[in-house]
């Protein structure tokens, strides 16, 4: 918790999620504990007899926000990234940039990096264009197929948008990708490689094959008749996650740089921790060993003691093993005192965007002293012996909070957030 000007601060946030088309409406939805999932109104649900008929779909269609021609050149996961990035950039008040009408940005392009992760990449383009190739032939395949399907596409487009010349990166670590992008940004800023990093995650892959694949792995919530109540982290009635789509982007700056330009600071990314389970390709280590190492590393890099941490914004996807394993990791690394929430009850699982959107929720909790409830938590799993916020948001002043993100492959990324 230094204030020597050497840290990393958050100066902008942007999001488009199943709860709302921006950060403000998303945060309102989280505070209200509103479940965002809904029925999928597509013929393919019945065509393929999918066991899952619900998803957490974007509240605002990207094509309502961006120009038609822009939309046709971008995969849906790129559209969401651009929308969230523009909101974050504007929120940070970084000025005009190459695509704007006039003026120049407030950061040197050579000191600006973009890091946007995704779990799956441009799956809708890949699968859609494959259908076109098979049904209509080569000549109908889109010229822009490759830049639309490549997983670095969202990062590349956001980089082009702002003219970021110091580097454009796209970490891919499944459901930890968005958090990993932010962690990567912290490292670049702490190494004084850049002054500003636009970082986050994006995902848009609601498609029969993803639903079929996750269903076959027995990881998905099946409460089709009550979609808004289907995602139930920490609840005894949980039976898997609800697939979601969206994007979250933050603007991170070297504290010294933000101070010099008089930027409004919304919170500090005080430290980060990453680890790998080295245990199983999909199952979490039930002892939470790798996860607790990541949390401990975040505390260490932030210079925090476990007693400083009042809140953990959990990864908790509402699978039976994963949710409990995470609480074991929290107890090991921090103790019994942090108050937990699980945003996926409201948002569903945004995969590669989850870590970034949930980091924003954590930043807002620390800034506002307000912890959103875990939507749909009605009967706490008796194996969870920590205080989980349910019902309504809880007022609590926070000196520090942790945002957890874990991904298939055993990727663990934890972010330590402290007040501005």
């Amino acid at each position: 918790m230094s204030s020597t000007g050497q840290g990393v601060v958050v100066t902008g946030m942007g999001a488009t999620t199943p709860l709302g088309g921006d950060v403000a409406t998303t945060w309102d939805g989280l505070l209200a504990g509103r479940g965002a999932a809904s029925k999928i109104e597509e013929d393919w649900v019945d065509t393929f007899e999918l066991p899952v008929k619900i998803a957490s779909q974007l509240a605002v269609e990207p094509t309502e926000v961006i120009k038609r021609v822009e939309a046709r050149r971008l995969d849906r996961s790129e559209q969401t990234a651009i929308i969230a990035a523009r909101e974050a950039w504007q929120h940070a008040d970084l000025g005009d940039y190459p695509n704007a009408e006039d003026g120049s940005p407030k950061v040197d392009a050579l000191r600006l990096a973009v890091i946007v992760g995704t779990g799956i990449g441009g799956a809708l383009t890949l699968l859609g264009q494959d259908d076109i190739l098979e049904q209509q032939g080569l000549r109908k395949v889109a010229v822009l197929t490759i830049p639309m399907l490549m997983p670095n596409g969202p990062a590349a487009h956001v980089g082009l948008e702002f003219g970021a010349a110091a580097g454009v990166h796209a970490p891919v670590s499944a459901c930890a990708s968005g958090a990993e992008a932010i962690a990567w940004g912290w490292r670049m800023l702490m190494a004084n490689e850049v002054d500003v990093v636009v970082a986050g995650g994006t995902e848009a892959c609601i498609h029969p094959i993803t639903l079929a694949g996750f269903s076959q792995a027995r990881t998905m919530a099946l409460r089709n008749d009550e979609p808004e109540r289907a995602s139930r982290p920490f609840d005894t009635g949980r039976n898997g996650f609800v697939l979601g789509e969206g994007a979250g982007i933050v603007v991170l700056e070297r504290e010294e740089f933000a101070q010099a330009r008089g930027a409004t600071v919304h919170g500090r990314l005080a430290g980060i921790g990453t680890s790998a389970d080295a245990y199983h390709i999909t199952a979490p280590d039930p002892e939470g060993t790798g996860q607790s190492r990541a949390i401990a590393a975040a505390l260490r890099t932030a210079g925090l003691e476990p007693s400083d941490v009042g809140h953990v914004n959990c990864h908790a996807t509402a699978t039976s093993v994963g949710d409990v394993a995470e609480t074991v990791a929290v107890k090991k690394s921090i103790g019994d005192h942090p108050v937990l929430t699980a945003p996926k009850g409201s948002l569903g699982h945004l995969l590669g965007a989850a870590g970034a959107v949930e980091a924003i929720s954590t930043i807002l909790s620390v800034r506002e002293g307000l912890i959103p409830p875990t939507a749909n938590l009605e009967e706490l799993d008796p194996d969870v012996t920590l205080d989980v916020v349910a019902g309504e948001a809880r007022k609590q002043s926070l000196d520090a909070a942790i945002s957890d993100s874990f991904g298939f492959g055993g990727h663990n990324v934890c972010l330590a957030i402290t007040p501005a």
Partner: protein
Amino acid sequence: MATNEEILPDLASIVEEVAGVDAAEVTAEKSFVDDLDIDSLSMVEIAVQAEDKFGVKIPDDELAKLTTVQDAVNYISNHS
């Protein structure tokens, strides 16, 4: 063989569809790159759609020579 007057409006609507340039802006003397701000990938998309629309083949080396809208209209007119 289609006349220039028949080709231009259809070509303009393809340019509008692909690049978002108002079809009314797509006039004969305009340069695709310098005036209409169309990049090389968009030119390829326009060529593919024009090939289908007008029943012509526009090989890459010919496409590279089509600087203005009039050049494209002439090419289509001479090859359809």
